[in-house]
């Protein structure tokens, strides 16, 4: 068995999602090659060579891969595919854009956003927005898979793989990269933040939310809220987390003065670590929290801010 992992990178280094995808690949087993496609991406190739478990780094450095255009990148992957039993990529917007195109070109099915490897041909993935988990098996000769980053740990970085160039350029001329605007970063986006700190009705008013802002800016976190806090007018609607708000799954979710109604949990229960600060020891939020602090938030939050 041999696996090709299409890397997610920024030309100079790798994105974490690549490291988690390599962990998933190593659970399948076999040789792992990493493909770095891009324009001026040698730095990323160097970084990939250091990941433990990687045998070979293949670099396709050409202007036609700028912005990882789906048509060209898929053609590139397809041209290399005959050597592999599995083709994998992180389930990022790039991975999701490119791999299904690869699969259809190879006339095989694809598996999106897997959260578990059961065996070389059997995987777990969520369906119905995470409300069910399906175990699915592939009968295809080549398995094309995208991997959910939060479901796997990061691969270690003490390897030394060889680096080789893929020189053939696949410019299909179907699309052109016309620019990119990076999301404004003065406020961390709720849905992509690594840490989210949310306030509920316990915050009492909008001024008190500045306590959370302070903690957030120290942690590089985004600030969210419960519906009760939004309805009371403490914060705008787009900060609502939950069934009818945003769905978040950060590494760390801190719920402050939130009781933990099921409709709120629906928006954050897949967070890696949940912390609850609430003065009511019976609040349902403690049933899902990894760490609970039974305390008045007006004492605890300033303390937290100072300790950071």
């Amino acid at each position, binding site marked *: 068995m041999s696996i090709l992992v299409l890397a997610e990178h920024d030309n100079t280094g790798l994105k974490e999602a690549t490291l988690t995808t390599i962990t998933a690949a190593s659970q399948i087993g076999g040789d792992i090659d990493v493909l770095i496609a891009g324009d001026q991406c040698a730095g990323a190739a160097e970084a990939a060579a250091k990941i433990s478990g990687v045998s070979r780094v293949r670099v396709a450095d050409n202007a036609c891969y700028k912005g990882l255009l789906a048509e060209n990148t898929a053609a590139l992957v397809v041209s290399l595919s005959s050597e592999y039993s599995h083709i994998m990529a992180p389930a990022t917007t790039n991975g999701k854009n490119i791999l299904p195109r690869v699969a259809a070109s190879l006339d095989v099915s694809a598996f999106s956003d897997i959260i578990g490897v059961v065996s070389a041909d059997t995987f777990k993935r969520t369906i119905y927005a995470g409300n069910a988990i399906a175990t699915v098996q592939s009968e295809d000769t080549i398995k094309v898979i995208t991997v959910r980053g939060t479901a796997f740990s990061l691969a270690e970085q003490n390897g030394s793989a060889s680096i080789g160039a893929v020189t053939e350029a696949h410019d299909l001329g179907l699309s052109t990269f016309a620019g990119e605007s990076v999301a404004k970063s003065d406020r961390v986006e709720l849905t992509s933040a690594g840490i989210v700190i949310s306030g509920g009705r316990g915050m009492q008013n909008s001024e008190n939310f500045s306590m959370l802002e302070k903690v957030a800016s120290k942690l590089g976190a985004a600030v969210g809220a419960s*519906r*009760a806090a939004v*309805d*009371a007018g403490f914060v705008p*609607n787009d900060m609502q987390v939950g069934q*009818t708000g945003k769905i978040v799954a950060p590494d760390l979710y801190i719920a402050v003065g939130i009781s933990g109604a*099921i409709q709120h949990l629906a928006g954050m229960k897949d967070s890696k670590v949940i912390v609850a600060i609430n003065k009511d020891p*019976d609040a349902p939020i403690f049933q899902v929290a990894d760490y609970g602090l039974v305390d008045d938030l007006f004492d605890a939050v300033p303390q937290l801010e100072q300790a950071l």
Partner: protein
Amino acid sequence: MRESMEFDVVIVGAGPAGLSMACRLMQQAQQAEREVTICVVEKGSEVGAHIFSGAVFEPRALEELFPNWKERGAPLNTPVVRDDIYLFQDANKAKKIPNSLVPQTMHNEGNYIISLGNMCRWLAEQAEALGVEIFPGFAAAEILFNEDGSVKGIATGDMGVGADGQQKGGYMEGMELHAKYTVFSEGCRGHLGKQLMEKFDLNKDADVQHYGIGIKELWTIDPAKHQPGLVVHGAGWPLDKDTNGGSFLYHGENNQVVVGLVVDLSYSNPYLGPFDEFQRMKHHPVFKETLEGGTRISYGARAITKGGFNSLPKMYFPGGLLIGCDAGTLNFAKIKGSHTAMKSGMLAAESVFAALVEDDQGGKELTSYTEALKNSWVYDELHRTRNFGPAMHKFGTFWGGAFNYLDQNWFKGKLPFTLRDNTPDHAQLKEASKCQPISYPKADGKISFDKLSSVFLSSTNHEEDQPCHLTLKDAAVPVEKNWRLFNGPEARFCPAGVYEYIDDTRDADEKRLQINAQNCLHCKTCDIKDPSQNITWVVPEGTGGPNYPNM
């Protein structure tokens, strides 16, 4: 000017009453080879989404409407095989009442355990096949009148209006639906029906209407405990002796049971919470044994019209009719209203069709409808059971029950006098200072649950950014009166956690009423039981509300 469309008949509400009416009308039209145009509007996202019932179904009206209902695949799959009746004495004890002592009306041979929602889904298919236009997701928001004061039709609500009353992107103005006859079948406490009663004084000669709130859950249980066709009814605990009501547990198909409690809204203690009563009720061994190890899969609530015969209003007015529970045709002695609702719809269809055949251009009072009703089994049935509710109100569950046993079994409901009860339910509430607070046990998350996780299972939702559909006549009343005098009873009688009295952040000693309209189950209890009659339920944007499957 709003756009308008013309029909022969517009029907408001796709419940058993409205759909039976539509089917019967089309059957007659087809028989007479006449074209009749019928439009049914339904506020739920689909037919059945808002239908909430028990239900033990008496197939009498269905037999008359579709004699071949079996071949047509009507979802009547579980015949009742046994009736058990319990008198609950306390949290652990219950007496099974011998069959010979049970009022005749509580026997269910020949009936079926069904999902009334699925029944309506099937009726809608029949109606559409007959040529009826059904529009789910459109709520009738307003009654339209002709210059002569007769009903001209209805207008559907605007879509895409923000909470601030401003139009949002995708705004769509409501439509006027004009008809020769407009028929209101909104079910219990219809919000347009209520306006019609006032406008035409339809209640003039009737007793005050009475209501209950029914709360129900659908469970999948251990197949070993499942007894398809078993019907269990109970009275007594957890309700105290001043509070009427009854519990039920029906074993349906697919290893599913429904368990529920109906609480009379004539209760007097503002601390009482029908939801909490129901949650603790399930811990009684009679229920717990069945439910233990099972999974709760759905939850809902709906008010029930229980005044019966004495409270029936005048059901016609110029240009329209009231049918089914919108008028109050439910037989409370049987806790069944779907068969009478259907029959009232079928009779209404016959009156309307007769008028249309005579080239009636609409707007008249169809008195023939009431005549037909009087000559039908609906009237006979309701008349026999007219004392049932008032007896319970007057004498309590025990002596009322005894009266009902004698009345229904020995005298077949023909005792030559009528008990009356003219205090409206909302006026029964006593001030909090005169009542004992009730402390309910905490939900255990296995048999009993909290309100919000219950509401979750109703799949209810409303577009958040829209005007609140729970309107207050006077915004000061909730705190000034309902909170000060009654300790905020709406927080308890609302089965969906819509009303919350929370600390006013500007003044710690003050309360503020928070209305979470998004949670609303459209049960109408607040409109009925608010002691100040300050809350008026109006239709939210179409499709809003619960999405009940199999309820």
